[in-house]
């Protein structure tokens, strides 16, 4: 177990950080739930169950923290380009679907998300986005009559 010796003494800050986040969520839940009213044991209030969950979260996250303190896990290499593009694509849909209608929103989500990979051709992106926007209109608005606007008027 050479790896084991190598990690001895080293503390994995990232893993502990993740466990700490769960601990804080638990602490917040436990605190906040007392505001809702714990009730009595016969008639539990709306705060009772969240309080239990908060305490459980705190306890478990401490245990997990101990378990992973020497872990060799590295923080993930965050693929910034991918996350930014996918994020922009989803947000553009969220923004456009009410303002612009389903067709522009569909076009945007597909056209933008294609930039996540380098080297995707713009022409194909345009065609793909246009085709799917048409399909979306036909299937969801014409076919299943979902109460969505196709375009902005």
């Amino acid at each position, binding site marked *: 177990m050479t790896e*084991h010796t190598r990690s001895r003494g080293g503390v994995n800050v*990232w893993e502990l950080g*993740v466990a700490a986040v*769960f601990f804080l*969520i638990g602490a917040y*839940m436990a605190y*906040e739930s007392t505001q*809702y009213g714990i009730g*009595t*044991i*016969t*008639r*539990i*209030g*709306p705060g009772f*169950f*969240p309080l239990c*969950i908060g305490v459980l*979260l705190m306890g*478990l*996250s401490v*245990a*997990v923290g*101990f*378990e*992973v303190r*020497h*872990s*060799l*896990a*590295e923080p*993930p290499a965050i*693929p910034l380009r*991918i996350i930014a593009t*996918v*994020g922009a*694509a*989803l*947000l553009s*849909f*969220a923004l456009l*679907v*009410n303002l612009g209608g*389903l067709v522009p*929103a*569909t076009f945007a*989500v*597909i*056209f933008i*998300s*294609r930039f*996540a*990979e380098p080297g995707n051709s713009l022409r194909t992106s345009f065609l*793909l*986005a246009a085709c*799917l926007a048409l399909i979306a209109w036909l299937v*969801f608005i014409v076919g299943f*009559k979902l*109460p*969505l606007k196709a375009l902005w008027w």
Partner: protein
Amino acid sequence: MDLFSNVALGFERALSPDALLFCFFGVTIGTFVGVLPGVGAMAAVALCLPITFYLDPTVALIMLAGIFYGAQYGSSTASILLNIPGTVTSAVTCLDGYPMAQQGRAGVALFMVTMTSFIGGSIAIVLMMLFTPAVAAFALQFSSAEYFMIMAMGLLAAVTISQGSVLKSLLMVVVGLALGTVGTDSGSGVMRFTFGFLPLTDGVSLVAIAMGLFGVAEILASIGRSEGRGATPKNITFRSMVPTKEDIRASVMPTLRGTGLGALIGALPGSGATVATFMAYAAEKKVAKDPTRFGKGAIEGIVAPEAANNSAVQAAFMPTLSLGIPGDALMAFLLGAMMIHGIVPGPRFLVDQPVMFWGLVASFWIGNILLLVLNIPLIGVWVRILAIPYRILYPAMLFFICIGVFSINYQVFDVVAVLIFGAIGFAMTKFGYPPAPILLGFVLGPMMEEHFGRALLMSRGSFNIFWQRPISAVLLAISLGLILYALKGVVSRVRTGSVAVEEASRDL
């Protein structure tokens, strides 16, 4: 006998034109998403959910269920031809399926896998028809104490069976429970953890959580890693699909063993089809005269897991429909979908909605036969679908996720929530936190809270109720047993600290 009239009733409903048509849609979509690696049945159900709001609930249920078992048929295709599992439930099929394809026996492998899937599914449906009414009748005696305990047991079982750190899985279950408390409390009307934010008053959207943690997170992890794909597999001719007598003889017993194992595991709360396939494969390796053949194209190594996953998926409907308790995250999602439709599965479901229940069961037969037709003569179509490159696929998937999530509540916030859960899901799997338990906890949490409160109300605040009622006591004992079973490993890992670098799987 009562059973026959019920089955007849079911077939009458399932054979009506609308049910047939949507059963066909369901299994076709299921096969399609099953064939495509990286697109799970869950995404397809999420997408179809808003469409089914406009259908009769029975028909909607038939279609959604069809997607689930249809995906089991399709998923082995990519495993065999490309060595990439279509869904996690056929990851094991790669081990012997791909070597068979390399030996030029892909056609035989595909044919046998479809046949055993059909046999496994059919046997499990019979078992389901026989046992579900019995289980439901038994469950009618359940009070809130039993319901609470059986849900707790299911969650514990799911956690202890899972691979990787038990503690991290357990933590994720609790995170799921926590997410379930967000929104208006059904008992008191108090708004909990909404931060005064209007879209949260109805709680977090189940579809947004599922699509974020599984759909978007998977896409984030897969983009840019798609180079291996796009290799066009050769066309499969009918002639190449004919198995030899030897193949058939070697497959009979493994199919039956796989079916039995799958049905058993599928019916248990807390364990699903994925576990069943791994166990079926391990069992075949154990009983084989020459275990070295495995991994080199042994036909037993593909038929047993495929029989197991189909029978497990069918059997998993048993606890879901009769008790209202899902076996795994996939079933939890289907249960959530049913509740959005206003259908409350549970012991009363069979009594109150006989047409819906038996219609659904009858549709399983019809669906399985349709799948046989779809998969054997039309295998060429599915093989060609495999050639769609990921760079075309993922933008379309993102769009389908958007429309699926948005059209549940027509709430823009849900699309943003998908993005948030996608980023969280991506990060947490890297640190070894599995997302599947979150979904289970989220679906079961509100029910557990309600039953917990009711049990205590019944007992006037005494916790004795959980061990004084016999059924509840047995469930409690099993739960404690599960905890003890896991405790040894957990304690040693906590004391020394685990060094393993584990990336949690996004498996269900």
